[in-house]
Structure formats: structure tokens, C-alpha cells
């Protein structure tokens, strides 16, 4: 079906990314805004089912397959690309938007893939695209962070590839369908997926890498990698009980570190881990309601997290600061940003009439329905924690609290419109949840606005709000950086490596001194032989070639003589 190939939404974005890398001026702006819309139209013109099938090696691949779940994720990705492109329109970088579009296109490619091989290919493109987005911040710390990020994701890709290969060899079937973690191959696939979701013990890549991106780059980054991971888990491993505990760990990990954190964008990065944790719990529960909840939460989370990061990005772009201890009182001069940021904050705390309320409550309800009391209690406690760290802490320290004396104005029109669009969506989804519920993979008979739900949630929020202001003194941050697991690769490994190197040098010195001057290190050996007449580079004289021919011939003759 060449027809549908042309209209593959992922290719629309990837091709426009290639085009954007050479475009400038008004044409570029037009492509940035139109390409996601075009991708969205292309997506909704596709019927459901397997649309494009190819045979590759001995396997039957389906690079384009659409069902309700994949359409839901692809839609929010296209929408996110549009809003992110609009927000980043004025960003002065030739690399960032093409990289982000490549990244977004690959993410859509993953969710529209019907087989594991295609998933893997787009998975890797996604890793490349996101690394480029971080890189395009063009600072030294971003460069280093992008390398750490790329290393973890390439390692994750290798694990995933090993799993996919094992799966292909064992079953001969490439279809991406439900799996159980029952063989090494499937475990490897699960681990590969979880690394991208920001699961322990490697969660730290996320708050390490994302905040190093530019003020607009992080908006893109927040949406795609973790949510494609949620999608593949939804499709591949629904109802795997382990995921409940992994998810709960992520929920509390995010809360604790976000509360300790001082940098506003690192707070929001930790809260991504926390929110993805909710989704992973939903996937682990695995009932229809829970899966619906996880999918809906991914949808709404992309919107409000992007909104929060846009407001944080607007502050960063205007002030150049991102530490809570250096900000405050910005509501005087940035009223629109304050309002939008607050709507995002209310949404993430699941305030009734915002989008977070209608999605997160589905997961809690599923836990209650499944009689998972511990899970339900922990989720309720976590909801309060979310309000503490993201719902109040972020807007309070950035826009209110003490006056920092900064008086930046609201951002330019393109950024304002992007924020307004997502703020509107946050409220609209909260008020009319049916529109979103209709898109979910399973039929929904869940009603979010019952008196019990609303009252419980309001009580929860009220008391945690109270707690915040009572304990305000403890929560005031000092200008520090919090290291968690990334301590290992930011501090421990380098220092261990340095120590090892020191020991090694000692040893080498001793060996060289003790044994003889003849002992040379491999390094100097290679360096020496890279000279024009070195062993590695020089041309061999004809006679030595001829000698080798004789050696080979005699060796063969001798071996044949023996072997007979």
C-alpha cells in the first residue's frame, strides 16, 4: 500500500525535520506549524488495522498499524509537536527544532509500529533525536549531559535489541503483541522499555539530562521518550505485577527528590518520573479501567507537564535563572505566565475541573476495585505529595514568595499562544472528560465527578496545602545541586577511574623501573607505530609479501600432509 506509506504520520514529521534543517525565515515557521497539523490529519485519515506490511528477511513486518491505543498516543504526540514548535518558534537555534521533529516523528513511528523490529528502529532514531535536542542547548553542561544521556539510551537500545533478537529466534514472529516476562528475551525487552520510562535503578538519567536542555528543548523532551515507554509497556506488558512496585518506587522517588531540589526545572523533571510512576502502576494493575487510566494519564500529563515546562521555560528565557532560591515575585510582571503555570500546577495535582483529576483518579479507582489496599493508600499519599512538590512548591517559589526584584515581562506572542492553548486544554479536558474517554482503548463507564471523589480529593489537597505552609521553613531551598543515583556516574565512577588510573600509573612506574626499560605501554606502542614508517602504516616490501605466500603454501601443504 504505497498510498498509506506516503501518508505515514511519522514520515511526515521526519521529512519535515530534514527540510527544516536547511530552511530559514517565514517558510521555516510555516513548516514548523503546518507539519504537525498535516501529520495529525494524515493520522486521522488512516483506518484501523494493519496498513502496511512488508517481508524482511524471514519475518513479516508491519511498519504501520493503527488501533485506538496507538491513535491516542500518536494524536497527543502530534499535538505536542505543534504546541512545542509554536513555543520554540523564536528560539535561536538551527538544530533544535529539526532534531525535535525527528524525535517526535520517531516517537509516532514507535506507537504506530506493529512489529518489534520497527519499534527498535524508531526507538534508536528517537534516542538520536533527543540527544541532538539536548545538545542544541549549546552549553558545556548540555554537551556532557547529552553524552551521559546517549550512553544510557544506547545501552538501553542494545538491551532491547538483544531481547528482540532472542524473541525473533525463539518464536520466528515479529508481531508486537502482549508478552509475559517468562524468558530471558522478554526480560531484556522489558528492561529496555523500563530504562526509557525512567524506572529504577537508572531513573537519574532523566533529571540529569532534561534540565540541561534549552528553555524550549525541555518542553519537547518531557513528552516523548517516557510516554513512548508507557505506550510500549501498555501494549507489551499489561498486568505484569512487578510493574506496580516499580511504578510505586518511581512515584515516591520523584516526590522525595523533587522536594529536596532547588532548580525549578529539575523539580519538574523529577515530577516526570513521579507521574510516569502513576502510569506504570496502572499498567501493572492491568484491568481495563487501569489501562484506560494509564493511557488517559499519559495524554493529560503530556499537556500539563508541557504547560508547566513552558511557564518555567518562559521564566528561564526571560531571567536566565532557574534556581528557586533566586526567583520569586514574578507574578507582578508575568501575569499570564503565572496563570498558565498555576493551571498546570493544579492539573498535575489533580484538582477537580482540571485534566489531571479525570485521569489519575481512574488509576486509583482501579486499585480500589482490585482490592489492592496498600497500593491505593500509597497512591493517595502520593497524590498529596505531588501537590506538595509540583502543585504548590513550583508556582510558590517561582512566581510568589519573597520578591526577588526581577521584573521580566511576559514572553513573546508565539510562546504566549502555546501556553494559552495548553492551559485551555487542561481545563477543557477537566470539564468535558467524555471527549478524551471516547478515545481510550477500552469502553469507559467511569464517572469522575461523584461527590465522594471530589470531596476526597479536595480534602487531600487542602490538608497537604496546609502542611506546605506550616512546614514552609523546612522546604525553603538552599542553592545546591541534589545528586542521586547519578552520583555513581558523575562522582563515583570518575573518581574511581582516577584512583584506578593513579594506581595503574604507580604500578606501571614500578614495573617499568623494576623489569627493564623495554617495557612499553600499549599507548606508546601504538603511537610509535602510527608514524609513517610504523608497523601499522608502512607498506610492506615485495619480498616480505612473497615470503608470506611461501609460508602460507608450505603451511597448507604441511597440514594437508598431516591431515591425510
Amino acid at each position, binding site marked *: 500500500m504505497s498510498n498509506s506509506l506516503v501518508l505515514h504520520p511519522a514520515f511526515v514529521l521526519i521529512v519535515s525535520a530534514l527540510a527544516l534543517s536547511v530552511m530559514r525565515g517565514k517558510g521555516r515557521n510555516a513548516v514548523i506549524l503546518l507539519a504537525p497539523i498535516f501529520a495529525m490529519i494524515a493520522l486521522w485519515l488512516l483506518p484501523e488495522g494493519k496498513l502496511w506490511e512488508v517481508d*524482511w528477511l524471514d519475518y513479516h513486518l508491519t511498519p504501520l498499524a493503527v488501533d485506538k491505543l496507538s491513535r491516542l498516543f500518536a494524536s497527543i504526540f502530534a499535538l505536542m509537536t505543534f504546541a512545542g514548535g509554536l513555543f520554540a518558534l523564536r528560539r535561536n537555534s538551527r538544530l533544535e527544532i529539526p532534531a525535535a521533529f525527528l524525535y517526535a516523528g520517531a516517537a509516532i513511528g514507535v506507537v504506530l509500529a506493529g512489529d518489534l523490529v520497527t519499534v527498535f528502529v524508531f526507538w534508536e532514531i528517537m534516542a538520536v533525536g533527543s540527544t541532538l535536542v539536548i545538545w542544541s542547548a549549546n552549553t558545556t553542561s548540555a554537551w556532557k549531559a547529552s553524552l551521559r544521556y546517549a550512553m544510557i539510551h544506547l545501552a538501553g537500545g542494545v538491551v532491547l535489541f538483544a531481547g528482540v533478537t532472542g524473541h525473533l529466534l525463539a518464536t520466528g514472529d515479529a508481531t508486537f503483541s502482549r508478552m509475559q516476562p517468562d524468558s530471558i528475551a522478554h526480560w531484556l525487552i522489558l528492561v529496555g522499555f523500563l530504562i526509557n520510562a525512567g524506572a529504577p535503578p537508572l531513573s537519574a538519567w532523566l533529571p540529569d539530562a532534561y534540565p540541561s536542555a534549552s528553555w524550549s528543548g525541555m518542553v519537547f523532551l518531557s513528552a516523548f521518550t517516557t510516554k513512548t515507554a508507557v505506550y510500549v509497556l501498555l501494549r507489551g506488558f499489561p498486568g505484569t505485577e512487578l510493574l506496580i512496585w516499580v511504578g510505586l518506587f518511581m512515584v515516591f522517588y520523584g516526590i522525595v527528590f523533587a522536594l529536596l531540589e532547588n532548580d525549578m526545572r529539575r523539580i519538574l523533571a523529577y515530577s516526570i518520573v513521579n507521574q510516569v510512576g502513576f502510569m506504570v502502576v496502572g499498567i501493572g494493575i492491568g484491568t481495563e479501567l487501569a489501562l484506560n487510566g494509564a493511557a488517559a494519564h499519559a495524554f493529560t500529563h503530556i499537556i500539563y507537564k508541557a504547560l508547566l515546562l513552558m511557564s518555567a521555560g518562559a521564566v528561564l528565557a526571560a531571567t536566565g535563572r532557574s534556581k528557586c532560591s533566586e526567583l520569586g515575585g514574578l507574578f507582578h510582571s508575568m501575569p499570564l505566565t503565572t496563570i498558565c503555570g498555576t493551571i498546570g500546577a493544579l492539573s498535575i495535582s489533580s484538582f477537580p475541573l482540571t485534566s489531571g483529576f479525570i485521569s489519575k483518579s481512574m488509576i486509583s479507582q482501579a486499585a480500589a476495585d482490585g482490592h489492592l489496599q496498600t497500593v491505593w493508600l500509597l497512591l493517595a499519599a502520593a497524590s498529596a505529595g505531588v501537590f506538595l512538590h509540583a502543585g504548590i512548591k513550583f508556582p510558590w517559589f517561582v512566581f510568589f514568595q519573597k520578591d526577588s526584584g526581577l521584573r521580566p515581562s511576559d514572553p513573546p506572542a508565539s510562546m504566549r499562544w502555546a501556553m494559552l492553548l495548553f492551559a485551555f486544554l487542561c481545563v477543557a479536558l477537566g470539564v468535558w472528560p467524555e471527549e478524551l474517554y471516547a478515545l481510550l482503548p477500552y469502553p469507559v463507564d467511569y464517572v469522575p465527578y461523584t461527590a465522594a471523589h471530589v470531596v476526597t480529593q479536595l480534602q487531600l489537597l487542602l490538608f497537604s496545602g496546609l502542611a506546605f505552609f506550616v512546614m514552609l521553613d523546612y522546604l525553603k531551598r538552599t542553592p545546591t545541586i541534589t545528586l542521586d543515583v547519578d552520583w555513581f556516574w558523575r562522582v563515583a565512577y570518575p573518581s574511581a577511574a582516577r584512583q584506578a588510573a593513579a594506581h595503574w600509573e604507580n604500578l606501571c612506574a614500578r614495573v617499568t623501573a623494576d623489569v627493564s626499560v623495554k617495557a612499553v605501554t600499549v599507548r606508546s606502542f601504538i603511537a610509535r607505530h602510527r608514524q609513517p614508517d610504523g608497523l601499522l602504516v608502512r*607498506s610492506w616490501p615485495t619480498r616480505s609479501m612473497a615470503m608470506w605466500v611461501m609460508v602460507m603454501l608450505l603451511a597448507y601443504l604441511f597440514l594437508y600432509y598431516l591431515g591425510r
Partner: protein
Amino acid sequence: MSLAQHLPALQVVLPLISAPLAVLLRRGGLAFVIVTSAAWTAFAIAITLWLQVDTGGTISYHIGNWEPPWGIEYRIDRLNSFVLVLVSGMAAVVLPYSRASIEREIPRESHYLFYAMLGLCFTGLLGITITGDAFNLFVFLEISSLSTYVLIALGRDRRALTASYQYLIMGSIGATFIVIAIGFLYLMTGTLNLADMANNLSAIKSTRPVLVALAFFTVGVSLKAALFPLHQWLPNAYTYAPSAVTALLAATATKVSLYALIRFYFTIFGDSLVFDKLPLPEIMLLLSLFAMFVANFVAIFQTNLKRLFAYSSVGQIGYITLGLSFDSVHGLAASIMHLFNHGIAKGGIFLLVGGIVATLTTRQGIPPAPTFERLAGLAKQMPITCFGIVIGGLSLIGVPGTAGFISKWYLILAAMEKGQWWLVGAILLSSLLAIAYVWRFVEVAYFRAQPVDQVSRGEASLSLLIPAWLLITATIWFGFDTSFTVGSALDAAHQLMRSAR
């Protein structure tokens, strides 16, 4: 008899006639037209033959209607129809490219000789591939070798002459060994027809003369195929030859020698002799591993881009012989596939490197070598060329989505079938070395600042870019649509393994 029945003869005769015609015309332009049209016709014929073999099975053509085993037989089966497509296809792509490329690399008055030699060279290669007669094979081998020596010597760099001379000596040793082996076989079987020889040989397989023939043949062909450690002629020959010649040689010459090796091992000696009774698979495995690691490692430290990719060719030949040493259908298929996949990728890369050479400023009329310090920041000036080299490089590494991945995949499958997990690790490790040398190019071209004193230069001309990009596109194409490569290679492997049992 209609023309269609004579296609096997025409496959060789047309290019063969084009060469003396080119000399007689003595005009570069006319010679170009003649040889190019011969190459294109040969390509069309090769595709037709491939289709005929695909539907109708093995074709046997008797030259001058002399019945084999007395007359010369051309025998086309799945394996050589596939190699014919590669050889004639490469000739058809390289010839149009060569016109603009040799403009600066070869003195104008010897252009017609260049075309004549190129015509002879691929005539010889096609002949080796198509013939079913041992002595005929030797004759064609000499035709292609002699013309190759001339082609390499045509390079303007003075070192081209030594490189060519060295290759002449080594090639002659190789050819002598091959003719000695054929002599022994003739002595023992009384026939030169390959199929007949295989029949007669089955009774006297482990006699000493046959084993000696096998040893001479293996060493002789290993030399021509640049199998480690007999590869030392190759880096110089590739580095100093004119760019178009390098591309043609890299994509076809060593590949055809490997074809001859496969043909003799499986069709004539039979694998029970080659693989079961003698320690040949172990030796070949060892040499392949050496090639994969040593040559790839040496490639990392080269400063001349052409030389870097020349060493990488030696490493890639290691993968091909590694597949042979498994003595299984998948291993053999991986080798045959890699012949093709590596041929197009390396051909494309060398054509692009030729484009870079064409834009370097000449010194006293001689284009300088593409060394890394001259390539710094190249991606800004020649983005299309550099991007193409990177894609070709990805195929050398074996990244999914490129042709190189497909053959490596089958190689890994074959290793797994044998339960040789450590070999899977070795294949992947050697790919890391390939990443390192490709990265060296990327680092220099994309991340290094352009030297201040360098004159800025533009993209290579379209007549150089289009043929090169045809091959690079083919690398991507055959990474996705594998029906031609994998289909042909698997069929050929099945056919060979059947005939060998």
C-alpha cells in the same frame, strides 16, 4: 538460433570487442561511448540471464557448439548469475563516473587506453564468473589482472607505479599458483571442464596431487582475493590507483576471486574434502578473525581516507571467508550476500572519495591524497558527499536499515546455528572497530574546524555524485528489500551445498 540463446557468449564477447575498438578509435570521447554502451548492454544481459536462471534453472552454453567436455562450456547457475549482476552493474555505474573523474587524474592523451583497459578488466572479471572451464578461467584471470596492473599504474601519483609493480609481482605469483593447481587437476582427471572434473575427481579425492592442487589453488586465490595475510598489495594498489579504478576493483575484483574460491571448493573439490578431512575450516576461521580484527584495527590509524577504506576492505573480506568456514547453508549465503552488499557499499564510498579528490587543489597537475588534515570541516562544503560516505560507513558497520546489516545478520545466525556464541561476540566486537574508523571520518569532516588557509570548495559535480549516490541508495534499498540479495544467495547456497554432498 535466436539472439537470446547466445546471451551467455555475448555477455563476455561484447565488452571484449569494445576494448580493441576503443584503441582503434584513439579518441577519448568515442572510446568512452563504446565501452560504456558495452558495459550497459552487459548489465542488461546479466539481468536477463539472472531472470532466466531464476525461472528456467541452470543454463549451459556450448561455445561454437562443441560439446563439453571437449569444447568450452559457459555454465550459469544461481551463484554466478548473481555475481554477474554485481560485476556488470558496477561497471555500468563506474564508467559514466570515470569520464569526469579521470579528467584530472589521467593525462588526456591516454584516456582511450584507460577505457580500453577498463573494458578488458571487466571482460576478464565477467569471463571468470561465467566460464565452466578451468583453463578458460585462468585466461580470463590473466586478462583482468594484466589490465588492472595498467589501470593502477595510470594513477598520477608516482607511488602508483610501485604499487602496480608490486601487485604485478604478487598477482603473477598468484596466477602461477592457480595454473599449477589447474595443471595438477588436469593431470589427475584428464579434463578441463569444471563439471566433468568434479565427476572424475570424486574417485581420487584424497590423492596427494589433488591435495597439492587444493593447496596451490587456495594460496593463489587467497592472494588475488587479498585474504589476510596475503593482503599487503591491496592498500597501496587501492590508494594510488585512479578513483574510478579503486571503486571498480574494490567492488568487483576481490569479489570475483572469492567467487572462484567458492566455486572450486564447493563444485569441484566438494566440501567433504575441503571441510571434513582437512583442517581448512579452522585455518580459514583463524585467518578470517585476524583479518576482521587486525585489518580493521589498522584501518583506524590510517591518515589517508582511501587507505583507511582499503584496510577496511581487507577486514570485510574476513567476514566473507568467515561465512565460508562455517560450511553451512546460512554461512555460505551470508558470504555470497556480503560479496554483493559490501561491493555496493564500498564501491559507493570510493566513488564519493573520488569526488573529494576531484575538488582538492592540484599541485603541479597532480591531485593530492585525501588525507585527514585536508578533509577537516569538509561536511560544510561537501554535505552531500560526506553524508553519503557516512551512510556507506553505516553499512560497513552493519547498522540495521543498511545492506551490511543483512549479511551480518545471516553471519550471526550461522554462528548461532553452530553454537559458536563466542564468534557472535567476535563479529560484534569487530563491528566496534568499524565504528571507530567511520567515526574518525565523521569527527574530522563534521566536528573539526576548516583550516584557515584552505580555499573553500564546492560540492563535487553531478556526474560524480549521481553514480555514487546510486550505489549509496542501493545500500539502503537492499537493507530493506532483501528479496533479490537474500533470495539469490540462499538459493545459490542451497544449490552449492547440494552439489557438494
